[in-house]
């Protein structure tokens, strides 16, 4: 198990290295993309361009530039924005990261609990009224776009019913946990619910399908022949085997969301998270910020994948030897 973990971590580091090279090449070595022209502004003279190139080190060989960027990003941590000259990139990401982390982690708890609970309830009541009901709510949650749901939630809680039922809902924004934990949770409550709705729907549906499949497996028949109760069979045998797919799904979703995929929810609720930062930097083609955001995002995706694989080996003993 330990050597498996070490091997997995090493390969994760290699993947990150490969991603950094690939992203760097996409933005700095793609023919037709000239960062200097971007920085210098429209219709800059060739002399200005030359000057900009020299100033930003864009005239040096590509692998030196890659090294310099990595050096500024990870070692010296003083990489500056091309657009807002002088603004350091790393503190920006570090400031945005806790917002996203708080948003996604809270939502993850909600969607895991409701999704798994919904899946179990639906599978346990297959053929009864409650199963299609849960599945319908699930598909409805999946079908509603997060930005629309977020806007509707805002409309209700901030405007239409703000003076009556939802008077306790604070205005949009983010309060750091260290500043006021209660206000932190209150500000994030509706963003959490909005983000969690989609995933809870997906997870409930996936888990139900997995459980229904598992309940037809031979080992469940064995468990019944052993005289176990239906509840124990469902939880101890079928659910335990179905969790593997939920865990891998969760790793991918969680990693991607931390990495910036919660953009729509962040925008709707005015949360200055990583998704928002990536979005603005892409609009401005602010290459250092893009680079930092992509590295940050891919770090979490790769990390989540590594954690999933390790958990996978923990959940399914057959994976350990392979």
């Amino acid at each position, binding site marked *: 198990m330990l050597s498996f973990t070490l091997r997995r971590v090493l390969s994760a580091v290699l993947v990150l290295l490969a991603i950094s090279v690939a992203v760097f090449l996409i933005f700095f070595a793609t023919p037709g993309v000239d960062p200097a022209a971007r920085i210098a502004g429209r219709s800059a003279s060739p002399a200005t361009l030359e000057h900009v190139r020299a100033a930003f080190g864009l005239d040096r060989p590509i692998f030196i530039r890659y090294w310099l960027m990595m050096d500024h990003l990870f070692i010296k941590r003083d990489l500056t924005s091309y657009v807002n000259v002088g603004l350091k990139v790393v503190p920006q990401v570090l400031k945005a990261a806790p917002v996203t982390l708080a948003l996604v982690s809270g939502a993850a708890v909600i969607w895991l609990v409701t999704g798994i609970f919904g899946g179990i309830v639906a599978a346990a009541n297959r053929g009864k009224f409650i199963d299609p009901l849960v599945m319908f709510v699930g598909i409805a949650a999946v079908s509603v776009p997060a930005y629309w749901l977020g806007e509707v939630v805002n409309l209700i809680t901030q405007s239409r019913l703000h003076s009556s039922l939802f008077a306790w809902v604070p205005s949009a924004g983010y309060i750091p946990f260290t500043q006021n934990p209660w206000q932190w949770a209150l500000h994030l409550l509706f963003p959490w619910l909005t983000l969690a709705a989609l995933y809870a729907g997906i997870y409930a549906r996936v888990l139900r399908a997995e459980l229904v499949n598992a309940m037809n497996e031979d080992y469940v028949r064995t468990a019944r022949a*052993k*005289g*176990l*109760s239906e509840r124990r069979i469902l939880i101890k045998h079928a659910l*335990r085997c179905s969790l593997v797919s939920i865990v891998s799904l969760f790793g991918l979703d969680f990693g991607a969301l931390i990495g910036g995929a919660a953009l729509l929810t962040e925008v709707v609720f005015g949360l200055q998270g990583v998704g928002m930062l990536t979005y603005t930097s892409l609009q401005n083609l602010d290459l250092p910020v893009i680079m930092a955001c992509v590295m940050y995002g891919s770090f979490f995706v790769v990390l989540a994948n590594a954690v999933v694989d390790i958990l996978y080996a923990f959940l399914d003993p057959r994976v350990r030897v392979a």
Partner: protein
Amino acid sequence: MPESPVLKVSDLKVTFATRQGPLRAVDGLSFEVAPKEVVGIVGESGSGKSVSMYSMLGLVRDANVTITGSVEFQGREILGLSDKEMQPIRGGEIGMIFQDPMTALTPVYTVGWQIVEQLRTHTTMTKAQARERAIELLSEVGIPDPRKRIDHYPHEFSGGMRQRVVIAMALSCNPKLLIADEPTTALDVTTQAQILDLMVKLQDSYNSSIVIITHDMGVIAEMAHRVVVMYAGRPAEVGPEIDVVRNPRHPYTWGLLGAVPRIESRNDRLATIPGNAVSPLDIPEGCAFADRCEYRMDICTKRPQLKGANDHLDACWLSDEQRVAIRTKASS
């Protein structure tokens, strides 16, 4: 005075409602299992052998199934009991061994965990006691180094070893009756013999009755005291093993035995049963085997009842004289 039977099945019928109409998987199966007796149920795939066993234990979970008849286990009617009432019987008093040991164990738990789970469900053993008992059981079924192997996962065992684990689990609570559903079909030939030997040996020391389901007459000859031959969900021939194997009476049993049995001279060619097993969706009104039977007569459109003498019954319209004539002809 014979002891009262451990299991008495009377007129068991299992029907599935399907879109194509009722599917009669088991149609009037009756047999008894005496204490310490081994009863073999033989038949081709789809003849209703496994379904009849599963339906007895309430393991058929299909909502469209109708099960009628009577199944008495130690004098108590168990057909139609609720899951809750069945739980102490399943695994506690009736152990079950399945066809495919590769999939019969939950892949994510160690074999020890799974045996302990069963022991703790049916007895008041502590964890440590159950674990000691599990080690004992594994050693009894011939798993080397059981103290170490108990913490291994199912995928770390070979097929034959896994079947031993399944057998250990089935025997863990000293069941009165062991139902073995094709326990050797998924194993290679040498392992098959070992597993059968093991079952014979354990049956001796545990004094369980066994119902063994198989399509292999060799397994029957090895183990069974009595035989039920099934075709299309109906019993075709019932009798003591020695009579059914040496002196089969039903044309279907002749086919199963590989050839029409010869009285004296050798016949080099193996006969097969022509045609395919009848679809359980349209079993004929009369004899179910009639369409494939070489000796079909006009009367075969009427359903034959089990009849015969000395405990050896068969459901066929052929008269004794006709049978002798056919067998004499076949051996000449």
